[in-house]
C-alpha cells in the first residue's frame, strides 16, 4: 500500500482490569476509500476506534499518519491531525441551535461577543460545500435522528476532518435515512475524504465500502476488497470460536413447559417493531439458548419476561407455569419460582458498597427461613452465605467484604450463587459469563448444567458462541426482533451456518421456526 493515509501497526491494548481488547492489530487506511471495520460485539472494534481518535492510548504499537509517526493523546490531538468522529451517542447540546453546536469550542467572535451571524455563515458554507442541507437556526432537540447525525458529520468537517470515523452510524437510522447517509458518504468520498465505517451489518458494508477489515477476539482476521468477498465468507470470519469448550451433559429429560411465549409483539413509541411475533417454549430440564448479534431484540425480550410488559401495550401471551405474567412486576414473577441473572452485574446485579452476604440474600430475605417477623435470622444468614461462598468458590476475605472489591469473575459468581441457590424452576440468564475469566465461566456453566439436571428450565441469552452452542439443548437465533432460526442440536451447528442467520443473510422457513413451540 503506497499511499497509506493512516496506519496502525501491532496495536495492543490491555485495560487496567486485565482485559486484552486488541492484540497486535494491524489496520491500514488508504486515502479516499470507505473502509469498513466489521466484527461482533467484543471483537475490539470500539477500542481500536478509540485509539484512532486519541481517546485511549495503546499499550503497545505505533500509529502513522502519511508515513509520519504520531502520538494521539487526546481527541483534540486527533482533531488537529484531521481526524473526526461521529459517536453513536451524539455529542450535541440539545438546547443549542445547529450553528451553536457546530462552532462550540471554536466560536467566532466579534469584539467581546459570540458572532452568531458568522457561526451561521460558517455552518451554511460547510453545508453547501459538502451538499449536506441543515437549518443552522433550528434547535438540535427538535431535529430527527438523521438530522442530528448530519450535524455531527458537519461538525467534524468544519474542524477540518479528512478522515471520518463513523461508529455504527446506521444503528439509529430508518432505512430511508440510511440511504441518504450512504449517498452523502459517497459524495464525501468523491470530494477526497476517507471514511472508516464501523458496522456488523454486512449488506451495508457490501453496499458502500471499498475494503473491509474483519476483527474477531481482539485480532484482525483479514483485510479484503469488498467486491472480492461474499457475505458468507465475511460472516465465517466474523463469527467463530477461539477455543471450543466441551462439557459432559446428561442426556436431556424434558418436563412440563415452564415458560411459554406465544405470538409476542411489542412496538416502540414511534411504532417501530421491537419484537415481532415471537413464539417458543422452555421446558423443565431444558436449556434454550438465544443467539444473535446484540441489539436484535434480546434485551427487549428479557425485559418483557421480567416485568417490563406491565402497563405496556403488546400482543401475544407470556405464561410462567401456566400463569399469565403480562401484568406482573418482577417480584410477582420471582414469586412464581423464577430467577434472573441480569446482563449488567454492576448496575442491576449487585450493590457495590454492600457486603457479599447482603448481596447474596437480596432475593430471599423475605422468605420464612430467613426471618422471624420483621427480624432477620442473623445466624441462619451467616451460615447460608458462608456455605454459598464456599460452594461457589468465591475468592474473598469473608462474607462481610464489600462485593465491589471483588474481581469481575468473583462478583459474577456471587450473582449466580444468589440466583441459582433458591431452587428456581425457571432461570433467565442474560450474558451470565460476560467479562469474566475462563475459569469462572466454566464454573458458571457447570452450575447451569447442575440446575438443568435438577429439572430447572433455563433461558440463556448470550453473545458468546461457545456458551450458547455447548450448553443449550436447543437454540433460537434472533435478528431484528424476530426468531429467524431454530436448532435442535446446537452442538452440531457449525459457526458458519449460525453466522448466516445471526447476520441476517439467511432465514429458516416458518415451519422450522415454529418447532420452537413444541420442540418436536
Amino acid at each position, binding site marked *: 500500500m503506497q499511499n497509506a493515509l493512516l496506519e496502525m501497526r501491532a496495536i495492543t491494548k490491555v485495560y487496567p482490569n486485565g482485559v486484552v481488547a486488541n492484540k497486535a492489530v494491524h489496520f491500514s487506511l488508504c486515502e479516499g476509500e470507505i473502509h469498513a471495520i466489521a466484527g461482533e460485539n467484543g471483537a475490539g472494534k470500539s477500542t481500536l476506534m478509540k485509539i484512532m481518535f486519541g481517546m485511549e492510548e495503546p499499550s503497545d504499537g505505533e500509529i502513522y499518519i502519511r508515513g509520519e509517526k504520531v502520538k494521539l493523546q487526546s481527541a483534540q490531538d486527533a482533531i488537529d491531525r484531521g481526524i473526526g468522529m461521529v459517536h453513536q451517542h451524539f455529542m450535541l447540546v440539545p438546547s443549542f441551535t445547529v450553528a451553536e453546536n457546530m462552532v462550540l469550542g471554536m466560536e467566532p467572535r466579534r469584539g467581546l461577543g459570540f458572532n452568531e451571524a458568522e457561526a451561521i455563515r460558517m455552518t451554511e458554507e460547510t453545508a453547501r460545500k459538502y451538499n449536506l442541507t441543515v437549518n443552522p437556526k433550528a434547535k438540535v432537540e427538535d431535529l430527527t435522528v438523521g438530522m442530528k447525525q448530519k450535524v455531527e458529520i458537519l461538525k467534524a468537517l468544519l474542524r477540518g476532518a479528512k478522515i471520518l470515523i463513523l461508529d455504527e452510524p446506521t444503528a439509529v437510522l430508518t432505512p430511508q435515512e440510511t440511504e441518504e447517509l450512504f449517498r452523502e458518504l459517497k459524495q464525501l468520498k468523491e470530494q477526497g475524504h476517507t471514511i472508516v465505517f464501523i458496522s456488523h451489518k454486512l449488506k451495508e458494508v457490501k453496499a458502500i465500502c471499498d475494503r473491509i477489515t474483519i476483527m474477531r477476539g481482539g485480532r484482525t482476521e483479514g483485510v479484503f476488497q469488498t467486491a472480492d468477498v461474499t457475505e458468507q465468507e465475511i460472516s465465517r470470519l466474523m463469527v467463530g470460536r477461539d477455543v471450543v469448550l466441551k462439557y459432559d451433559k446428561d442426556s436431556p429429560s424434558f418436563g412440563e413447559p415452564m415458560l411459554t411465549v406465544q405470538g409476542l409483539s411489542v412496538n416502540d413509541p414511534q411504532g417501530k417493531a421491537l419484537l415481532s411475533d415471537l413464539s417458543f417454549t422452555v421446558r423443565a430440564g431444558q436449556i434454550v439458548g438465544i443467539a444473535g448479534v446484540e441489539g436484535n431484540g434480546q434485551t427487549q425480550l428479557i425485559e418483557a419476561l421480567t416485568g417490563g410488559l406491565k402497563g405496556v401495550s403488546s400482543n401475544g401471551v407470556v405464561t410462567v407455569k401456566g400463569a399469565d405474567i403480562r401484568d406482573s412486576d418482577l417480584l410477582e414473577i*420471582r414469586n412464581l419460582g423464577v430467577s434472573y441473572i441480569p446482563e449488567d452485574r454492576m*448496575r442491576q446485579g449487585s*450493590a457495590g458498597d454492600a457486603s457479599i452476604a447482603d448481596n447474596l440474600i*437480596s432475593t430471599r430475605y423475605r422468605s420464612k427461613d430467613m426471618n422471624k417477623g420483621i427480624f432477620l435470622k442473623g445466624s441462619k444468614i451467616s451460615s447460608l452465605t458462608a456455605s454459598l461462598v464456599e460452594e461457589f468458590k468465591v475468592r474473598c476475605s469473608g462474607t462481610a467484604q464489600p462485593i465491589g472489591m471483588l474481581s469481575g469473575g468473583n462478583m459474577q459468581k456471587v450473582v449466580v450463587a444468589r440466583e441459582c441457590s433458591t431452587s428456581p424452576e425457571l432461570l433467565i440468564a442474560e450474558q451470565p459469563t460476560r467479562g469474566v475469566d475462563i475459569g469462572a465461566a466454566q464454573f458458571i456453566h457447570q452450575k447451569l448444567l447442575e440446575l438443568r439436571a435438577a429439572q430447572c428450565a433455563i433461558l440463556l441469552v448470550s453473545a458468546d458462541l461457545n456458551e450458547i452452542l455447548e450448553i443449550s439443548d436447543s437454540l433460537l437465533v434472533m435478528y431484528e426482533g424476530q426468531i429467524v432460526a431454530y436448532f435442535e442440536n446446537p452442538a452440531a451447528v457449525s459457526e458458519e451456518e449460525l453466522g448466516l442467520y445471526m447476520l441476517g443473510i439467511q432465514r429458516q422457513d416458518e415451519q422450522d421456526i415454529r418447532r420452537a413451540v413444541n420442540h418436536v
Partner: protein
Amino acid sequence: MFKVKYFEVIRTSAVIVIALAIAFLIISLVSDQPVTTIGIFLLEPLSTKGHIGNVIEMAIPLMFTGLSVSLLFRANMFNLGAEGIFYFSGVVASVLAIHLTLNGWMHPLVAIAGGSIVGALLSAIPGILKAKWNANELVTSLMFNNILFGVGLYLLNYHLRDAKAFANVSFKFQETAHLSKIVPGTRIHTGLIIVLVLIVVAHLFLYKTKWGYELRMTGANREFARYSGIKTAKVIILVHLIAGFMAGMGGSVEVLGMYNRFQWSSLPGYGLDGALVAMLAKNNPLAVIASALFLAYIRIGADLMARLSDVPSEMISIIQAVIILLISAEQFLKFWKNRMLLKEAKEA
C-alpha cells in the same frame, strides 16, 4: 503496614488531626498566651463534672439529628431538612408543654410524642414528592427549613409569646412537662437515655430487620434493590418518616430538657450539625455517639476557651467547615489508598 480496609478510619483520623492543627494555628495567631489557651481548649471540657456534663448535654441534640441524617444518607437521600423539623417540633412540644395539664411522666411523653409525630409527617412531604415524582429532595428540604422556621417564629411571636417576659420568649412550660435531671451537679436529663435507646433501636433496625435491609440496599443501589423486588418508593417514604420522627424528637427533648420557655428566635443549627455528625460517623448509628460527643467536646472546649481566654468561641465554626470540606472529599488521600491497593495487589 496499613490495610486498605482501615483506610476510612485513617482518613477520618487524618481529617480530625488536620482540623485540630488548624485550631491550634488559629489560637496561636490570635491568643497572647497560645499554650495556655490550647490547654484550656483541650483539657477544660474534661476538668470538672460540670464541664463533662456540658459536653454530654450538648451531645444529646447532636445525636438525635446525627442519627436522623445518618439514616437519610444511608438511603442515599440528600435531605437536609432535619434543621427545620428540629426547630418546628420544638415549637410543637412547647405548645403541648404550655397548654396541656397532665401528670408528671405523661406530660413530657405526650409533648415529645406530639413533636416527633409532627416531625415525621412534615418530613414525609419531601419524601413523597421524591418517591412519586422524583422532585429533588435537597431543594425541597432546604426550602422547608425556611418555611418551618417562618411558621414556627410566627407561632412564637403571635401565640406563645409571654408579654411579661423581657425577651422574645414563650410562656413558661408547666412544671410537669420538664424532663428530669439524672446526674446531680449537671443538667444531663432523661433525654440522654432516650437517645441512647433510640440509637440502639436504630442500629438493630438497620442491621437486623427486613426493613433496615431494604433501606440499606435502596441506598447502596436503587436499581439493584428494584431488581431484587424491593419497593423502593415505599422505602424512601419510610426513611423520611423515621428520620423526621427522630429529628422531631430531638427538638422536643432539647426544649423540654434544657429550657423553661421556648426561646429560639433563629434556627439553632443542630440539623446541619447533624449532617456533620453523620459524616464523621460514616452513617453508622452506633458511631453517632462518638462523633456527637467529639463535636460537643470541641464546642464546649471553644466555649470555655472564650470564657477563660481571649479567643472567641466562633473559631469552632471554622473548624467544622474544615472537617466537612475534607471528610466528604473523595479525592482527599485517595492517592495514598491507590498506592496501598497497588501494593496489596502485588503482594497477593
